[in-house]
């Protein structure tokens, strides 16, 4: 029993004595519990910021968007539906949507050189992370992406990590927009199957 406890606590948490799951914390946040909110922030902010910064690149802009996301989490925690997935999923979905909104809002950042842009998104992918869990997910996703056709992979990567619309992707990759739509769909379906996402 003791062994189990100590082994368990080694993995997920570094400095908190007792770690509550994001779902438990979110339930308390929904009751207006500010301390739970602070804990939830500490647990999840690096991931939220990581994803946002992946799209926006600029650190201070990314922190601004992270702030918007956490305010939204605070406001809407009361409406979080446990039946529709985990708390971290909910938060990351929100983070991605807001990052995309921000990318679109700042039109100047759209003038990135197309080719540099594509290379960026792909090489970024090699960076190693210390956290085992994330590294495993990272490798899994990387392997799955490697099984897509090049066009599928570029389209999916530019859309998700670049925040580009499918018509922008079409311009960047010099392929008709209808093709991009199809590649985004069959690429995602392929990823879904490779990653074993069941219905």
């Amino acid at each position, binding site marked *: 029993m003791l062994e189990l406890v100590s082994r368990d606590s080694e993995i997920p948490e570094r400095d908190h004595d007792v770690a509550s799951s994001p779902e438990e914390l979110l339930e308390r946040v929904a009751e207006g519990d500010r*301390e739970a909110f602070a804990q939830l922030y500490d647990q999840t902010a690096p991931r939220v910021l*990581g994803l946002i910064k992946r799209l926006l690149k600029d650190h201070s802009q990314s922190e601004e968007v992270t702030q918007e996301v956490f*305010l939204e989490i*605070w406001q809407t925690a*009361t409406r979080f539906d446990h039946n529709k997935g985990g708390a971290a999923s909910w938060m990351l979905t929100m983070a991605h949507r807001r990052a995309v909104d921000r990318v679109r809002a700042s039109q100047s950042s759209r003038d990135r050189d197309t080719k540099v842009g594509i290379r960026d998104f792909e090489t970024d992918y090699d960076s190693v992370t210390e956290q085992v869990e994330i590294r495993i997910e990272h490798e899994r*996703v990387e392997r799955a992406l490697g099984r897509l056709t090049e066009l599928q992979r570029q389209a999916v990567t530019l859309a*998700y990590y670049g925040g580009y619309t499918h018509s922008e992707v079409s311009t960047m990759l010099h392929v008709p927009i209808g093709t991009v739509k199809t590649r985004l769909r069959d690429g*995602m*379906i392929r990823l879904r199957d490779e*990653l074993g996402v069941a219905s």
Partner: protein
Amino acid sequence: MSKHGSTSGFGPHETDTDNLSGAYSLNALSDEERTAFEARMAESDEIRTEVAELNETALLLGRAVEPVQPSAALRSSILDLIDSTPQLPKLEAEGSDGRDESTTTAAAPAPAEKSGELLEPIPLARQRWFMRPAVLLVGAAAAVGLFFGGGAVLNSPQPQNPGTSQQAISADASQILAASDVEHTASDISTGGTATLYWSSALKRSVVVLDGASALPSSKTYQLWYIKGSSVKSAGTVSASSNSLTQVLQGDMAKGDTVGITVEPNGGSKQPTTKPIVALQSA
């Protein structure tokens, strides 16, 4: 593997829209396309299932990203801000399974000692956000009363956005609620319950949250109105099948607009046919 057989299952005439599930799950659609796709999604179980799976797949892309440590300043800024940021009222009707009940009972009996002064007695805190000076209500109601005497040319009511349900709030709603300039006002509904209007002047949009509103017979609907001076515009109808819901108003909101809610025949009216049950004035 790639050209999945499911494409053909989408209906007799597979439209261009049906092909957008991938782009949708990656947030790669323009606003108009997203709206069109969501409407299409509402009609098809098959598309909804596919989208749910692809959303989850997209999430794995997000989870694979390397975390970035935020600055200490960000943490304190956010924790400061929540002190002045209201939370949405809970929806009582749906999704209250055993888990929800256990939380409320666990949290309700006493503001537990363990969390110290950080844990506020929630019902009071919530009440505070929904209590507004009575004078505001009177003023707004008077303005509405004045107006509802005369006829006006109105936008024809439009069908309610199918993406808006009692359970989950729409992306539009969360965007308004989390806008940096969001403001709110609340008022009792004359037939019971509370209505709260949240608006963002920057976004020119607003969302109304009904809490404990009476359910209407199926022949009736709540209808929302934007009222400014002598102009009254329909802002959509609300089918309140549950007594709590969050609804984004259709059309642009201007600062100072009053939002009125009336009970109308199903499908909505071109102009209000009954007295408003509540009026909310944006400041």
